[in-house]
């Protein structure tokens, strides 16, 4: 009897835990932290975390298949640099498209490596991290590139009824992704591949194509996040996006995602993203050094993964 309760508690705890935690933290902020509810603060969170939000959605797709994407941070920088360079000659739209195509292409390469060779995902994307960083530095000559194009910058500045447009875009993409995972076959097969690759294979699902798809999509999402980042900053920097993949992984895992694959949700991930946004904001407003953010993220990842590992061992008792 107790065991069942424990199982349910851990199970529910992980799927909705991010939402509950978010509610708790928002409440704490509203009650105890001065300036928390101020509009300026709220919008700042939304701007910054729509960037991470896109990355986290991409990371979710990859983690669902049992993989991981460590290259996201460098692709943010790469996107900004490529876009900034093209923009000078061709304008905002071609710049954005160029950056998206490049990163999507590199993501596809990662996917091919993971799908077709025995190289583990973390190595493949780690290698890609170096490649992305190197390309970014090379293209920008190791210097930041200022961006003058106002149309482009509006991506990071425009607001609708006081809410940042990029955040609204993110919400839209969340809804689309939610629909995709629930209603499209490829969406379901992503879960199947992560849950049991062997069973998925026996059922006739094309494992390679599924994996290549998610890595490509992850890089596309990352690129979009990179565009917002550059637009907001008003410049492109080859050293931008440092450790952003940590945040996206943390958001997915805290939102109930399992690094073993097959488990994770858009809702949980989105809540995870906002959770980190709010926590960061509270830390800043409370005068706690922003340097602690990394440690908190790291500890949260460890806790979340440990809990999900415990859950997994419980579940496999049935076998």
């Amino acid at each position, binding site marked *: 009897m107790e065991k069942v309760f424990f199982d349910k508690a851990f199970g529910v705890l992980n799927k909705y835990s991010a939402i509950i935690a978010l509610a708790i933290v928002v409440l704490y902020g509203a009650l105890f932290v001065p300036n928390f509810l101020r509009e300026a603060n709220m919008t700042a969170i939304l701007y910054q975390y729509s960037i991470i939000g896109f990355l986290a959605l991409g990371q979710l797709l990859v983690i669902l298949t049992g993989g991981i994407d460590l290259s996201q941070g460098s692709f943010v920088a790469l996107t900004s640099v490529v876009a900034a360079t093209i923009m000078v000659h061709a304008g905002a739209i071609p710049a954005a498209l160029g950056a998206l195509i490049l990163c999507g292409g590199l993501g596809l390469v990662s996917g091919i490596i993971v799908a077709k060779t025995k190289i583990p995902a973390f190595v493949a994307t780690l290698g890609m991290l170096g490649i992305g960083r190197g390309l970014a530095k090379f293209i920008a000559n190791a210097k930041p590139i200022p961006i003058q194009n106002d149309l482009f910058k509006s991506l990071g500045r425009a607001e609708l009824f006081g809410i940042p447009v990029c955040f609204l875009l993110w919400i839209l993409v969340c809804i689309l992704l939610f629909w995709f995972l629930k209603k*499209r076959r490829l969406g379901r097969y992503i879960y199947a591949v992560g849950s*049991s690759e062997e069973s*998925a294979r026996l*059922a*006739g699902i094309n494992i390679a194509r599924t994996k290549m798809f998610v890595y490509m999509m992850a890089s596309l999402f990352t690129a979009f996040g990179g565009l917002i980042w550059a637009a907001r900053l008003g410049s492109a920097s080859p050293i931008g996006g440092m450790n952003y993949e940590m945040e996206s992984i943390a958001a997915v895992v805290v939102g109930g995602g399992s690094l073993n694959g097959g488990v994770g949700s858009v809702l949980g991930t989105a809540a995870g993203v906002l959770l980190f946004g709010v926590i960061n904001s509270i830390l800043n407003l409370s005068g706690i050094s922003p340097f602690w953010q990394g440690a908190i993220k790291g500890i949260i990842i460890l806790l979340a993964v440990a809990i999900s590992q415990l859950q997994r061992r419980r579940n496999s008792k*049935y076998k």
Partner: protein
Amino acid sequence: MTEKEPILKLEKICKGFSGVPVLQDVSIDVYPGEVHCLMGENGAGKSTLIKIISGSYTADSGSILYLNTVYKKYSPRWAHENGINTIYQEIDLVPHLTVAQNISLRNEPMTRTKNIDDKKIKERALNIFKDMGVSIDVNAELQSLKVANQQLVAIAKALSLNSRVLILDEPTSVFTNTEVELLFGLIRKLKAQGIAIIYISHHLEEIFEIGDRITVLKDGCLVRTGLVSEFDKASLVKSMVGRDVRIEKKERLTSTGEEVLSLKNLTREGVIKGVSLKVHRGEILGIGGLVGAGRTELIRLIIGADPVDKGEICYKGSAVKINSPKKALKMGIGLVPEDRKGEGIVAARSVLENMSYSRIEKTARGSIVKWQSLKKRGLDLFAELNVQPKNPYKSIQYLSGGNQQKAVLGKLLNADCELLLLDEPTRGVDVGAREEIYKVITKLKEKGTAILMVSSDLIELLSQSDRIAVMANGSIVKEFDRDEATEEKILEAALNLGGE
């Protein structure tokens, strides 16, 4: 019940692995609407045969006719899509998807906009379960179900694919009596629909209740195919064993020594129930039984890999608690595991190194490894065991199964164990290596080592053991002295005939 034309016709199927023949000239017909039971002891070739039928393996020679067409190259996906489905014990469904989603996986009904129609998916699942007479929550996550129900979902999925041939591999091993009856009701319905069922089980009562015909395999060959009514329990058992080979029994020592191991009422929840046995110096106690009887689980308790819930282990006269294989080895208990690749060897390292692991700490000076003494000892063993090819520095993964097993044995010899646990010591080992391994075991016996040997090979049990204990359902059902045991008696005990 049976029509004139068989739906599946296998002719002279042969299959071997690494030169070892597993199936030889097996010919079987399966008719629509019949329950065709496949019987034979462990290693007779049943699983290989059904893997060939379901497309996982390709036969080396022979032909298969399915629906009157000859097929040369199968694949599991082709088999699925064309009506041949196998329900294995290891469920090949997706653990994190729901029951309904699993049933329709890769076969999802879609809306006009090419979206998944979840409503129809649930309906399909509900309908199939209604037909089956089963009530399972279609929205439950698959892995939350108990294994018996997971198997029912696997069956439901097979049915949704319009199976013509359904293969059930030991379906009832985790079923309660009610669930077995449920399954039989379902099978009868399927028969009426003309579906052919190949049924593998060692529960003889089930065979006689639900079966139409029986095919018996022995050592990869077809022994007999006939109507269920043509067999009775005794004749069935006799056809599964009973070889012409005259079993050469090992020399028994004039007297075995004192008790080395004594298990008293050893229990592990759900796995081992109240096992008591004794092994003496210079004695080989063989453990027989079918797969799933709990033999490996018993070994794991003795070696300290799993915790004991109740009961006692007495080693060399005193009660001990063995919490880890490390402690067991220190005490002088060694294990040659069943899963050679997974637990017996470190594939990337050399033969010599693999054989030395057990001795490294014993011979170390302080913490430094004494290479020369290890090397000398290792090379001696290497030569003594006649490991081929004669390069001790070769990575062990390139050796044949038999030679790898010799190396594993060498690792334990290196540890000077007083109690040796052997789990299927000659599985996947060629005849030559087998003989050599037997010689080593004899030498150990003469030296006074107590040996506990789990084996599914009845000949091996009879020729090597001094005493034989047979396990079924987690407990010991019968003990024999070597002179009174026969293949039939062992198998009968393993099948748990003659009352429970």
